[in-house]
């Protein structure tokens, strides 16, 4: 395995003007990204999540050469993104959910052709990649429609294709499913999953939709206030924050004796003991069910997966996440903000 993305102590400071009364303004520096360390290996599918303003997009923009870091170092495909921006651009693909990278007035087909010239892709490679995307993303019905007339879902499928036609080593997806209907979301997810399964393309995905994360990524990096607060699997996140799978059983008769199952704790007992809920804490669901079946007759059973949204919400609220982070809550007023309100609730 080789390392595709390396960031050490990566930071980005923005200067905001703080308004005091009518005229007095003072400048103040806010760290949007505050010392991010991250290594991504080739072929990984990484979910990069965090609340609004946590620094997700800013990190991505430093990795793609759009923003100049204020400190630390970042290398993508062994290149420094800003100084080697044009060279790096040939090795990465970028999709912004909120911003089109296609040409508004051109049909998709012509946009794709233009990209072939821009990235200097040999015609046969280009054709092969386009054929694959056309099949997987159902592009054929709107390939000759100008981009401005496409629906959001169609456009996003076009955007993803456009980002892949030059065969990038890394694909950055910044909220690719935002605003999409369920079918389009599934199409995009299915495609990204397929891409990840190939193992050649590294994918970095930022999203607000935690379903994207559950379906797609094995590794999850959570960022808040510009810092990485979790880096690991979804399961380790659940473990760390005490959210566990639950087994709910309906019994024919309530258990006579005390309910004692090692490796699981009784979370609830309802309907006079007819319905029991166990939180798994070290024991597998199957084993627990087997043990229960040995002492009682089961009428029904279900396994409840932990709700990732709850975990993430708890993570964002968790007070110990960044003890020395700057106290930005409710103090800073961005001078040129639309409503002059605080940047963070």
């Amino acid at each position: 395995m080789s390392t595709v993305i390396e960031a050490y102590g990566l930071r980005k400071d923005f200067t905001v003007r703080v308004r005091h009364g009518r005229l007095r303004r003072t400048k103040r520096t806010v760290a949007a990204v505050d010392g991010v360390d991250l290594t991504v290996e080739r072929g990984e599918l990484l979910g990069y999540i965090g609340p609004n303003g946590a620094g997700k997009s800013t990190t991505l923009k430093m990795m793609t050469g759009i923003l100049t870091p204020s400190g630390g170092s970042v290398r993508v495909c062994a290149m420094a993104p800003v100084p080697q921006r044009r060279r790096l651009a040939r090795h990465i693909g970028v999709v912004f959910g909120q911003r089109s990278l296609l040409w508004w007035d051109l049909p998709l087909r012509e946009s794709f052709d233009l990209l072939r010239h821009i990235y200097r892709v040999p015609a046969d490679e280009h054709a092969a990649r386009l054929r694959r995307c056309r099949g997987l993303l159902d592009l054929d019905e709107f390939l000759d429609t100008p981009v401005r007339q496409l629906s959001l879902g169609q456009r996003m499928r076009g955007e993803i294709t456009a980002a892949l036609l030059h065969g990038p080593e890394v694909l950055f997806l910044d909220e690719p499913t935002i605003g999409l209907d369920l079918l389009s979301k599934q199409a995009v997810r299915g495609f990204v999953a397929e891409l990840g399964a190939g193992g050649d393309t590294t994918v970095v995905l930022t999203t607000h939709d935690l379903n994207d994360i559950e379906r797609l990524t094995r590794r999850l990096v959570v960022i808040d206030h510009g810092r990485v607060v979790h880096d690991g699997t979804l399961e380790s996140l659940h473990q760390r924050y005490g959210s566990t799978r639950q087994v709910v059983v309906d019994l024919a008769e309530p258990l006579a004796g005390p309910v004692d199952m090692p490796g699981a704790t009784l979370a609830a007992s309802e309907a006079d003991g007819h319905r029991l809920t166990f939180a798994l804490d070290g024991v597998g669901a199957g084993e627990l069910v087997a043990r229960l079946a040995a002492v009682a007759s089961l009428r029904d059973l279900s396994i409840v997966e932990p709700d990732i949204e709850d975990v993430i919400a708890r993570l964002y609220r968790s007070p110990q996440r960044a003890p020395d982070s700057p106290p930005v809550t409710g103090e800073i007023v961005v001078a040129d903000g639309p409503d002059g309100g605080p940047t963070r609730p």
Partner: protein
Amino acid sequence: MANPYLALLRAQTRAQASYRTSFAVDVVSSTAATVFDVVTVLVLFRVTTSLGGFSVREALVVVGLSACAFHAADLAVGEIEKLRHYVRTGLFDTVLVRPLRALPQLLLSNVPLRVLGRVALGVVVLVVALVLAPIEWTPAKVVLTVVAPLAGAVFFGAMFVATSTVTFWWIESGEIARSLTYAGRDLTTYPITVYEGLFRRVFAFGLGFGFVAYYPALALLDRDDPLGLPGWLAWMSPAVAVPAVAVAALCWRTGIRHYRSTGS
């Protein structure tokens, strides 16, 4: 495989052509605006026979040189004024993720073909002025007739780019950037002798606008400078264009590093 920049230019030309009617209206209206520039000068000469010491036929040479230089620059880089929009909305991101130079990419995505009419009109005005004016042609003057508008165009182009970069530091920079370039252009339309003191010193000599049309026109017309400066200043237009381009390039490179990518 086509050059990527040419491919961009071709694509955006096709895109503009997809709005054929509005394109035709654009060409006509923007050309009409230039006609007014010429008419303004002619109207001035209805109330006076001499403008800053120049007859109407001489003054038209200045108008023609200035118009050719400015409109050629406007065609090539005029759409840089869109930069403000690109930076404010964060659209500039889309420029930076491509494996192409940012400035040519931005310009080629927005070449205002409607300005072609103005460039053509500028050339017509210059040719007519050169025919009407009392010029004794020499090989050097022929060269100057070609070099001066080109150097002037480069100079205006550099002004456009340099002033537009203000937006990287100050997103709400408004029309300040353009007003500087347009004030300079207005200055080049007339003999600089019509302007007074400080304004003339700052724009004509400090910023170099005087070398775009006025001094080359003096040389073509074999006139001495009423301000008493030497005749070789006619050839200064390339000399001021080069540092102007250097300053513009520096502003651009520094500006890009300050891009904040606002909006998501």
